[in-house]
């Protein structure tokens, strides 16, 4: 179980910061920017998750297909 807990905190922090950015931008009436920021934050979080998932699949491949 070499699972790194830091990544979970990283994603959580990303979510909090992006939510705060969204509310600040929405407060001054720049709602279009607010939506772009949220979307970009979502994409970055997805990239982090995808890299974790690809680790998982590599491991599954290694166990069942006897590669590596």
């Amino acid at each position: 179980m070499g699972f790194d807990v830091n990544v979970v905190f990283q994603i959580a922090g990303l979510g909090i910061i992006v939510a705060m950015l969204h509310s600040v931008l929405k407060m001054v009436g720049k709602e279009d920017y607010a939506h772009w920021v949220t979307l970009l934050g979502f994409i970055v979080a997805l990239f982090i998750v995808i890299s974790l998932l690809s680790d998982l699949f590599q491991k599954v491949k290694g166990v069942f297909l006897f590669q590596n």
Partner: protein
Amino acid sequence: MNWLGAVLILVSTTWIGFELAKKVRERPKQLRQLKVGLQSLEAEIMYGLIPLDEAFLHLSSQLKGPVARFFLEVSNRLDESASSVLEAWEESLAGLSDASAFKKEEIEILRQFGATLGRHDRENQQRQIKLTLSHLERELAEANEAQVKYERMYKSLGILTGLLLIILLF
């Protein structure tokens, strides 16, 4: 070492945010200075009959900040080199737009005003000053509104962007 980098990133983005906020905050102040300056220019022209270079020198001693430097520069150029008021005004205006927090609109208003300087008799000159003052009044209202709206936004955006970068790079 990680922490040192994180602190550096946070400090620099916060600083950028505060600088932008300062620019938003300075604009109404400088606009007010400019209005005061033009009003006393009107008085000097209408009642004092003072030549323009001396009038600008007086103005620069009454005001402060980039606006005072602008009037001082115009006065110096009129004394030394410039062949016309328009030329001295335009050259100093380029310096003002770098040194002050004014936007393009204010600089454009001032450029149009400079084109009328020293070409008319007193009554027409006074009318031009009044016109410029009313333009500046409108800009001042807009600048005040922008200050209320954007000053806090720039500050919090600076800090939040720093935190975001730190989390992404960590």
